[in-house]
């Protein structure tokens, strides 16, 4: 047991970990992806360099765009820094601000970020940015029921809907892990994350054809530091979603059980490691399937919905 | 007596073997002999089962099974005779030998499976036998190899198999119900189930009964899963249609009856009767309405079968002993009457080359024997005296009134009258209305096709006027087995 770290510092460390690690995790995934496709790929640290370059560039705004266009990236960033305070990023025990919001609350904050970006995109008058924004909102609306049912599952399993409580329940015994409701809920969440992070089969992550774009098209008109913040934000969103899936649902191990400095350091490393493993898995999925046509995305979401609904069903007889 | 049971379940298989080599005459003869022997053996069983159930290994015959066995074997025999005439006309076609071989193999297998079903001791074996009747008859429906036959066979096999899937679920749930009392090594035989009676878990038996009514009801032709029935009946070769309508539906109804027996033993009669009444009335209503506007002769008769299955179901639902007796009599009389009607329709279709009731005219002029016989068959189906169906429906109605089911009984009478209207209008038009420029030449296609109709008519009259004493005893015993009087 090393020297204890003050709890507010850990709280801050959660947000900082996400902030700092997010571009790195994206870099690793991009690297693995290019290797899977037989390319050499960029350096793992490339996203940091990109961000650095973008921050040094001047910012331009389209004619007629109002202050919302410029504030939105900041707002989104703020949202992405708030969510890590609510979820178990580094510790098994709830930190004081963990009670600010439950899973649903975290979801709302994420949705707010997405809303801000969409409004900014709508400000531009660029057809592609608006297309991306409206699509993102449409598919966001149909993934919403899935998320709700996952939340119901969590609520039924733990009796609360605090993410810390579910992580604790999963850790408590093997029978909590094999129960179908838990597995189904986790699978549904994985599908939602694929959709939300713009992965195949919903969207080509690195594609350049605007017609198939959803998430990627939204920051088309932003530039310089604003574009940097949007990219950084989407990397953070990815890491946050990964963290929720890993630390709440599928592998809530390796977290700091006490506020010791060593424990927290281990937890940071463990989190990054686990997220990279998940990222590699997603990269493999990305390379194994074809992108769905835009109108087939509802089928993908229907599959996720099915899993989430079944999770709630199986809980009905206490058999889930 | 056990040797009779064994013979009944093996003879048709032997005639299947005889039909394998392609000699048509031989297989016709063997089929005929087997069928007549089967009828004889079934009659021999009557006095025995009136005393007590006959058992041998997995075979078991009580009064209830013999009633259905009689219907099946009678129709089997009549069909065997009729088929000789039916096939005669095809003799010139290329590929006749192949067709005839398939026909005989199929017909005998079909008859075998339907004779086995009532003789099986246990719900699981019963399900297996009924499933075999389905697959064999599906192949027979497709025998004519036309587009329509292929369509009808596909719809039939799909719907009936799906229904029987539900029937299997019913069997399994019933096994579960039985195993909670009788231990897990028990094989769903009837006697222990009936003895266990009210000690069985109620909800499970309830579930099993409803599943059985829906599942086997698909094959009985109960609403709303009757849709395969008119297609299959109208597209199958006529002898097969007759057996489908007269026996297959009855055999499936027998399965429902067995579940009723167990369910009413466990739950008391209230619940199962209500379920049957609901399904029966809806079925009858639907059939009566369809009968009014049916122009295809064989489909007309098919809907009449749906109607009669509705009557049977209502009869059990009414629950009075008199109604039970009526139902059992109805099973046999319906087999004879519907057999006759299909036989007659087959001759008409042969003669005129169409199934359209709007085109067929002046039958009384062209078919001196078949036309009156068909008329009598239709009258019998409409429950006119002095035929057997009059007696049976009268008993059902009387039972309903006695059992304080006035409303249902009135509905029954009204709907049966409606059905009578539909049937008789279509038939009288074909028989009595003269016209049509190019009528076929006067004369019967084959005496073989007339003979079974005469026999059927005799049976109908005997059943209607004065059933033999042994037969009445059989029915009385069957009523007792169904729990009549409680």
């Amino acid at each position, binding site marked *: 047991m090393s020297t204890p770290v003050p709890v507010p510092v850990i709280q801050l460390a959660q947000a900082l970990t996400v902030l700092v690690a997010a571009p790195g995790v994206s870099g690793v995934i991009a690297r693995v992806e290019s290797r899977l496709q037989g390319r050499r790929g960029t350096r793992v640290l490339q996203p940091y360099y990109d961000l650095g370059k973008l921050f040094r560039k001047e910012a331009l705004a389209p004619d007629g765009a109002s202050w919302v266009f410029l504030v939105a990236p900041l707002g989104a960033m703020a949202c992405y820094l708030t969510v890590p305070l609510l979820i178990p990023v580094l510790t098994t025990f709830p930190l004081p601000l963990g009670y600010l919001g439950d899973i649903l609350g975290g979801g709302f904050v994420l949705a707010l970020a997405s809303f801000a970006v969409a409004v900014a995109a709508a400000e531009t008058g660029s057809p592609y940015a608006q297309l991306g924004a409206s699509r993102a909102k449409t598919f966001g609306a149909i993934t919403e029921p899935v998320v709700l049912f996952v939340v119901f599952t969590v609520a039924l399993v733990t009796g609360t809907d605090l993410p810390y409580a579910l992580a604790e329940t999963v850790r408590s015994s093997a029978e909590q892990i094999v129960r179908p409701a838990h597995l189904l809920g986790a699978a549904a969440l994985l599908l939602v994350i694929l959709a939300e992070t713009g992965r195949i089969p919903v969207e080509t992550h690195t594609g350049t054809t605007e017609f198939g774009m959803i998430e990627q098209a939204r920051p088309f008109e932003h530039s310089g530091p604003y574009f940097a913040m949007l990219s950084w934000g989407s990397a953070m969103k990815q890491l946050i979603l990964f963290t929720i899936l890993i630390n709440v649902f599928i592998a809530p191990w390796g977290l700091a059980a006490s506020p010791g400095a060593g424990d927290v350091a281990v937890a940071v490393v463990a989190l990054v490691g686990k997220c990279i493993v998940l990222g590699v898995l997603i990269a493999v999925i990305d390379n194994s399937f074809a992108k769905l046509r835009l109108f087939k995305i509802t089928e993908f979401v229907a599959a996720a919905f099915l899993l989430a609904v*079944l999770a709630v069903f199986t809980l009905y007889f206490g*058999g889930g | 007596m056990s040797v009779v049971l064994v013979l009944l379940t093996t003879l048709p298989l032997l005639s299947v073997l005889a039909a394998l080599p392609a000699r048509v005459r031989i297989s016709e003869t063997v089929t005929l002999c087997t069928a007549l022997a089967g009828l004889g053996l079934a009659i021999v069983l009557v006095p025995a089962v009136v005393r007590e159930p006959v058992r041998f290994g997995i075979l078991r015959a009580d009064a209830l099974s013999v009633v259905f066995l009689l219907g099946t074997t009678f129709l089997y025999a009549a069909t065997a005779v009729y088929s000789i005439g039916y096939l005669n006309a095809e003799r010139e076609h290329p590929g006749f030998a192949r067709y005839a071989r398939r026909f005989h193999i199929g017909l005998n297998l079909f008859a075998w499976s339907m004779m086995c079903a009532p003789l099986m001791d246990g719900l699981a074996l019963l399900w297996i036998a009924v499933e075999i009747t389905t697959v064999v008859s599906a192949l027979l429906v497709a025998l004519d190899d036309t587009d329509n036959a292929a369509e009808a066979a596909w719809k039939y096999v*799909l719907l009936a198999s799906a229904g029987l899937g539900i029937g299997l679920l019913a069997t399994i749930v019933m096994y579960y119900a039985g195993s909670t009392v009788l231990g897990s090594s028990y094989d769903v035989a009837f006697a222990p189930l009936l003895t266990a009676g009210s000690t069985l878990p109620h909800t*499970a038996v309830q579930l099993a009964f409803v599943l059985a009514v829906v599942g086997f009801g698909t094959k009985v032709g109960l609403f709303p899963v009757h849709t395969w029935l008119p297609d299959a009946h109208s597209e199958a070769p006529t002898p097969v249609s007759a057996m489908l309508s007269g026996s297959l539906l009855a055999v499936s109804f027998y399965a429902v009856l067995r579940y009723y027996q167990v369910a009413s033993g466990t739950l008391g009669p209230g619940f199962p009767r209500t379920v049957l009444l609901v399904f029966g009335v809806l079925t009858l209503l639907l059939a009566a309405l369809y009968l009014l506007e049916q122009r295809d002769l064989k489909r007309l008769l098919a809907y009449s079968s749906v109607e009669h299955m509705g009557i049977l179901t209502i009869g059990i639902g009414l629950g009075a002993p008199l109604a039970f007796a009526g139902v059992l009599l109805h099973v046999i009389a319906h087999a004879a009457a519907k057999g006759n009607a299909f036989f007659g329709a087959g001759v008409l279709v042969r003669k005129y080359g169409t199934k359209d009731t709007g085109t067929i005219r002046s039958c009384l002029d062209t078919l001196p024997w078949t036309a009156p016989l068909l008329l009598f068959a239709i009258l019998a189906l409409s429950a006119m005296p002095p035929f057997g169906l009059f007696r049976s429906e009268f008993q059902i109605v009387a039972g309903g009134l006695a059992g304080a089911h006035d409303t249902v009984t009135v509905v029954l009478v009204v709907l049966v009258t409606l059905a009578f209207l539909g049937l008789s209008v279509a038939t009288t038009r074909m028989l009595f209305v003269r016209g049509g420029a190019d009528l076929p030449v006067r004369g019967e296609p084959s005496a073989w096709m007339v003979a079974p109709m005469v026999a059927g008519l005799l049976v109908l009259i005997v059943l209607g006027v004065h059933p033999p004493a042994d037969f009445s005893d059989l029915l009385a015993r069957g009523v007792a087995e169904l729990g009549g009087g409680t």
Partner: protein
Amino acid sequence: MNVLAADPAAVAPPGVYAGVANGLAVLVLLTEFAMLRTTLLRAQVRVYAAQSLLVSLLAVVVAVVRDVPELYALAGLSLALKVIVVPWLVLRMLRAAGTEIAGSGALGVASEVLLAVAVAAFGFFATGRFHVTSPALPETALALSVAVILVAFVLMIVRRDVVSQAIGFFSLENGVSLASLVVAAGMPLILEVAFLFDLLVAVVVFGVLMQVHHRRSESLSTRNLTKLRE
């Protein structure tokens, strides 16, 4: 830090055995949904094989944990029949027919899935009313098997080609097998074998009729099966 203590309102976990068994049953239901979604006939047959494999696997799990040795034989037989023979027969027929893609169903895929979810929910909650409990498997597995059966019906209704409809029937039988594992695990082996044999006969007849259909209409679609109406 009381929030982390087990909440009385929470649904207690079913235990490792029941959880695994239910998980397998859930997978059976999911494969049923997968059949509803697949458009390639070949893939559909493979999904059916996978589903049968899951049912056999569940039989083995029950046999091991509940010590019912007959179930090993049953699992082996159903493996041979439903995972190997039946898919092989259907695939051979498909090769002969030369058709790859099923015509689209009567509904869009997403609406099909939603309809099936609704139907499955009905079956699930209806089963709950009957309180059929069994020593072999938890009640949830029974409810899931009923859901499988109902979704198989949806499959048979909305799909418009003979192969999908036949697969729908076969998978309906898988659902019944699942149910029989729950409530009738101790059923005499001879009966189970007879059921399987019966299935084989049905498969052969389905195959024959599918071939008849294909020969007559030059396709596997049932869209043109509309002559017999009224």
